[in-house]
């Protein structure tokens, strides 16, 4: 296998200085990329590194702000997915755009020339799926198919258009290992036919296994290119995560108190086809501890939060204990009454009702747990507006929430200020247990540091805090102990001081500790 592009070989697709600005934020910043005919190229990067933005530009979904693209040596602009398809670019999206009520053949027919009969599409799809080892029944309804089978429809749909370049966005994130193996065989067949594959992933082992070259993106920029087979997962992880992440600044030897959250043998099946099932989760969180749970999006973070908060109670009451009491079957208010607080991921529509005032949102969250303070009149539950208003004022002052007017609608606040409010709403109760999911997602740096400081202070005052986050900077800033969630499994917690970025990167990429690569194996 040759790695260098000889001067004679014209790249199938060349990208020069490709930039995409959202406002003043550069999601992709002057990206250069060459894809040779017949190679499987990996595009590696953390969430938010700009991978999706880049491929959306390649497939014509987004238009670049600057830069140029060359297809087989000649400049092109790709204005729509249709133009991309005509050039010979096919795309398999991470979340499928399939019609569940229709059959496989009907789904494929919708994106093809209407003159081709359904019978012919069925035949071609059947023969293609056989040729590439993608077993598929054209007459089956999508609603009856597994996620892996649905992905095959997308692949066959792309292949029917005879593309020269196929882009796969995180294809194995929804597949079982067996389905993934089958997919890899298909990719090797495509490569053998001289087609190119752009393979987007953050799973280091599979990138090493199947890709010829890897391009690493971080913060919208290309930070490295390499032959993944000559790298170790650890060295790839370092390229992905970057070495400029803040050093650990955390007082060692903080005395920890009693166990506040205890989770044992917690397994929860996936609720929807796109959800992740939780597998045998175990953790202890003590008073004074911040347990940070790291992981790449979609590995079960949301599902874990849902069962910890009681939004979805679990069948086994003993699986979750808060302050020693079994609460697996207890709902969210019952857990709040035990002194727990919860901050879900989505600010709008989950943590807060956007169209309602801050004081209303305060009451909605705490009407049960702080009944005495906010409601009067016994069974009539008359709202004590004075008490709610003063509590709202108190929270806004404590967390420095900037707002217009005394009690504005939640939706009128900026993301950072609303986030400060919904975190402050829980902190105001001095919860003895706090679980927060992505506390600073999409929040400006100032608000983020304020929230992180508040979480650290809460733990210092003797509460147990669980922070679920994708942001490694944040995790190192706040964590006493760090665990990593991957494919619905939670690793053992490690003291934050003993973990390196590489170890975390490996755990996040799904390399489990039992077979992690020894440090001595570095090859660079």
């Amino acid at each position, binding site marked *: 296998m040759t790695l260098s592009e000889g001067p004679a070989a014209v790249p199938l697709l060349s990208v020069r200085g490709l930039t995409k600005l959202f406002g003043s934020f550069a999601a992709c910043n002057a990206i250069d990329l060459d894809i040779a005919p017949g190679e499987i190229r990996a595009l590696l990067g953390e969430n938010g590194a700009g991978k999706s933005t880049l491929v959306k530009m390649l497939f014509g979904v987004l238009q670049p702000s600057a830069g140029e693209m060359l297809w087989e040596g000649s400049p092109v602009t790709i204005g729509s*997915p*249709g133009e991309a398809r005509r050039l010979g670019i096919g795309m398999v999206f991470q979340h499928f*755009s*399939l*019609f*569940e*009520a*229709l059959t496989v053949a*009907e789904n494929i*027919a*919708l*994106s093809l020339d*209407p003159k081709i009969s*359904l019978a012919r599409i069925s035949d071609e799809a059947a023969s293609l799926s056989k040729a590439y080892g993608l077993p598929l029944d054209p007459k089956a*309804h999508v*609603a*009856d198919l597994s996620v892996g089978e649905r992905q095959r429809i997308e692949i066959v749909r792309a292949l029917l258009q005879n593309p020269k370049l196929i882009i796969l966005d995180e294809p194995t994130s929804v597949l079982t290992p067996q389905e993934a193996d089958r997919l890899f065989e298909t990719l090797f067949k495509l490569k053998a036919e001289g087609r190119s594959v752009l393979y987007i992933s953050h799973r280091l082992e599979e990138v090493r296994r199947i890709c010829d070259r890897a391009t690493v993106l971080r913060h919208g920029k290309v930070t490295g290119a390499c032959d993944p087979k000559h790298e170790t997962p650890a060295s790839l992880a370092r390229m992905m995560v970057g070495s400029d992440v803040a050093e650990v600044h955390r007082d060692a030897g903080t005395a920890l108190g009693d166990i506040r959250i205890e989770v044992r043998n917690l397994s929860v099946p996936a609720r929807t086809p796109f959800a992740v099932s939780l597998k045998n989760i175990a953790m202890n969180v003590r008073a004074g501890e911040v347990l940070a749970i790291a992981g790449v999006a979609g590995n079960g973070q949301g599902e874990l939060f849902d069962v910890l908060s009681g939004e979805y109670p679990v069948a086994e009451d003993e699986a979750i204990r808060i302050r020693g009491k079994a609460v697996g079957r207890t709902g969210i208010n019952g857990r709040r009454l035990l002194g727990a607080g919860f901050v879900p991921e989505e600010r709008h529509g989950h943590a807060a009702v956007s169209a309602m005032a801050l004081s209303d949102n305060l009451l909605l969250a705490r009407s049960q747990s702080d009944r005495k303070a906010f409601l009067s009149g016994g069974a009539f539950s008359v709202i004590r507006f004075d008490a709610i208003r003063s509590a709202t004022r108190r929270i806004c002052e404590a967390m420095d929430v900037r707002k217009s007017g005394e009690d504005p609608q939640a939706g009128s606040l900026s993301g950072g200020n609303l986030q400060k409010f919904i975190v402050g709403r829980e902190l105001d109760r001095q919860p003895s247990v706090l679980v927060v999911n992505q506390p600073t997602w999409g929040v400006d740096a100032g608000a983020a540091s304020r929230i992180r400081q508040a979480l650290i202070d809460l733990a210092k005052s003797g509460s147990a805090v669980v922070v679920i986050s994708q942001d490694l900077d944040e995790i190192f800033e706040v964590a006493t102990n760090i665990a990593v969630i991957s494919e619905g499994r939670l690793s053992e917690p490690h003291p934050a001081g003993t973990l390196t970025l590489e170890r975390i990167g490996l755990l996040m990429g799904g390399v489990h500790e039992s077979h992690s690569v020894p440090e001595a194996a570095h090859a660079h």
Partner: protein
Amino acid sequence: MFEAILLTVITASTPLVLAALGELVTERSGVLNLGVEGMMIMGAVCAFVAAQLTGSPYAGILAGILGGGIFSLLFGFLTLTLVANQVATGLALTILGLGLSGQIGEAFVGQPGIKLQPIVFPLLSDIPFFGRVLFSQDLIFYLSVALVIGIHWFLFKSRTGLKLRAIGDSHSSAHALGINVIRTRYLAVMFGGACAGLAGAQLSLVYTPQWVENMSAGRGWIALALVVFASWRPWRILAGGYLFGAVGIGQLHAQILAQNLGIVIPSQFLSALPYAATIVVLIIISHNRRTTLINTPASLGKPFVPDR
């Protein structure tokens, strides 16, 4: 005796089948139009007035179709262009239709109507029993059967029908594939209106050839229930329509029979049967996730607002 009952059942069922077929196409595109009753009564009054003025029941049929179709455009404009709430708009359409038709038809109350005459197929109608029942009917009956076949073919065999179903299943995915969601939905809504109008024409030209205010008498609601009962499939509309029609006719005969036997069955109980049957079918359908996914238009009643 049995033949006579069967003939009345056919006459009573045809408007149900027609209105439900139209609503089926509308709902398959993802639009819930609760204004069937209003469109039907508008079709009835337009058909009656046109037939009186021209002397031709066929002009009446045309006017009924146009009346219902144009009236449904109002619904389309409000819900598709202005993205108004479909349920509220549909209810308003019914109320408006009932009032407006009364106004239009006021001068025609009590006039003897023109009955649409049957078209008798020479040889086929000589077949004993079935021939007489099936092949000496009026044009609207033949149209209703042709529409069942045609709509089944359109939805499940033609590419345009596939696109319509795709829109009903997921309008955003359909939009992403380049299908014109709003235009297709407009056409589906108008088709639904035209069918409801034709059903209304059958009422004022065949069933009871005269104009009486509120003469649709809740048939639009039964048609709506019928669509769900048939789980959005045309052949089941035909079967269900005749079942509901037979219940309606059977109710009258059962009343007389029961009275003779000295038993009192509240008429309300029998009138409620179609709705009760629909609830039972809904429970059966929703019990099985698969049948729900495959038959129910997933984006039914949800407004579509394209990005940017």
